[in-house]
């Protein structure tokens, strides 16, 4: 009789341990997915957007295209650039926007036809802020920065 009771208890225990194992695995994987989701979110974080506009009857209209603003955003006709500029006036490596010491800088990369910032041509690195418009050929790029 006692053997039967012990066996019954052992049977219950075995089942309980199996469920415990599944539960433990579930908890571990649940946490893992949450932490990796947070990580993915953090790495996907951008600093703002760059809105592409083109000339239309003397004023500028949005093309509907926009790019994320990255710590290093390069402009040019070459496909290796972050933002590929489809304009015959653009050089293959035209300009770059970089984050340096907490500020955003615009640099012209010795392009043939030059870069403008709010209509003024850029000869040396300048600090840019939210709402500035970068001009390359016939295209205009407006910076929209997120408050960090």
């Amino acid at each position: 009789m006692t053997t039967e009771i012990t066996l019954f208890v052992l049977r219950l225990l075995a089942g309980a341990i199996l469920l415990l194992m599944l539960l433990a695995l579930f908890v571990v994987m649940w946490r893992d997915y949450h932490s990796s989701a947070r990580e993915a979110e953090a790495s996907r974080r951008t600093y703002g957007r760059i809105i592409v506009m083109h000339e239309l009857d003397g004023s500028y209209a949005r093309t509907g295209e926009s790019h994320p603003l990255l710590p290093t955003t390069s402009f040019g006709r070459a496909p290796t650039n972050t933002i590929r500029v489809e304009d015959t006036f653009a050089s293959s490596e035209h300009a770059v926007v970089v984050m340096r010491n907490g500020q955003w800088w615009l640099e012209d990369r010795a392009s043939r036809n030059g870069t403008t910032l709010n209509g003024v041509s850029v000869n040396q690195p300048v600090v840019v802020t939210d709402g500035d418009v970068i001009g390359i050929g016939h295209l205009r790029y407006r910076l929209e920065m997120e408050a960090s």
Partner: protein
Amino acid sequence: MTTGAFPLSHRRRLPFPVTTERVLLGVGALFVIVITLGLILTRGRFEPGDLLSPAVWLGCALTGHLLLERRLPNRDPLLFPIAMFLSGWGLVVVDRLAPPFADRQTLWLVVSVGGMLAAALTPHSLRWLRSYRYTLLVIGLGLLVSTILLGRNPSGQEGAPELWLGIGSLYFQPSEALKIILVAFLASYLGEQYPALRAEGLDGLQRRWAISPRILGPVLLMWGLSVVILIWQRDLGTAILFFVVFLVLLYIASGYTPILLGGAILIVLAGIVAYSLFDVVQLRVDIWLNPWNEGEGRAYQIVQSLLAFAAGGPFGQGIGQGAPEFIPVVHSDFVFAAVAEEWGLVGVFSVIGLVAVVVMRGMRIGISQRGRPFHTLLAVGLSTVIGVQSLLIMGGVLKLVPLTGVTLPFLSYGGSSLLTNFIIVGLLLRLSAPEGT
């Protein structure tokens, strides 16, 4: 990969950190001890030898854990405990179903854990797999050919498939080793072709040209050779497994969906051809469609397996208290039915859940290898081997798909299968740790 700790570690009284792997290994040890006690009680007599295999299991778990902790501290914390849980369970099940085989299985466990540690800890093991792929392939195919010529079956029955190579009383199944060799070869080859397969701007017709015989010729040739040999050997489960793994890897490497569709059609076509050509396929399909007419004859095994599932019910009969021994060769291919009878639905769910977690973690390890096609393909291929093999045999035992004689990873009796699966886990551990490349 994060080595998340349980909240238990907030209690500072323990002299060692409580990591996920330790908790899970502890749960596994508890389970092995409980079911071993149950087994001894149902036998009604106690011999000190009964405690040998649980003791060896504990030793393997401890050694493996400590060595891995030292050399690969950032590995995936789930794979090793799950492998040990399932193999400990398998050890007790083999002891319960076929006591004469228990000692041999225990010995194989030691060899397997050693193999796993070797795969996980040998420096440059992944680079070897990658660079010496043709050498490995020649060794693998050589083993297979020698099985055809010299193969034996340990049971010594007439007409049984002769898939083993024997040295003395030790037998080894070369098709098991071929699984790893095949995946490593395909991963290495497709990883090299990756830029061509994934070239930007290729779509539609152009892409079809990229996946041309010129690129895939050697792969198809190699695959055709193994499948022909396997059908010759009548090891159908392994042939299906190889083909599915090949398709999955080709799909992952190329990202071209019609491959899967075409592959599915090819499998159905091959099935129809095999049905009309081979008696053994015809038998398997017939007893899958309707086993009940021949429940006492050709379909005896599958009918007994279904009865075992029914007898198990939700909570099982308890270890040693069911009657799974009515199923012929229950300790190898039909171990899942024995689990169902003695641990019930809870046990069945646990096996499925544990295997699923291994496969999921393997796939995740593959995803995390950004920019390293060989590593991605290796991780995906190895976890596909475990997943597809488990699905084939679990489905077969449940009469969901025609029965193919493959082993259930970690649980079934069989040394070469245990060794292969542990080496797969070792390679996955290696891939999961950022320090091992």
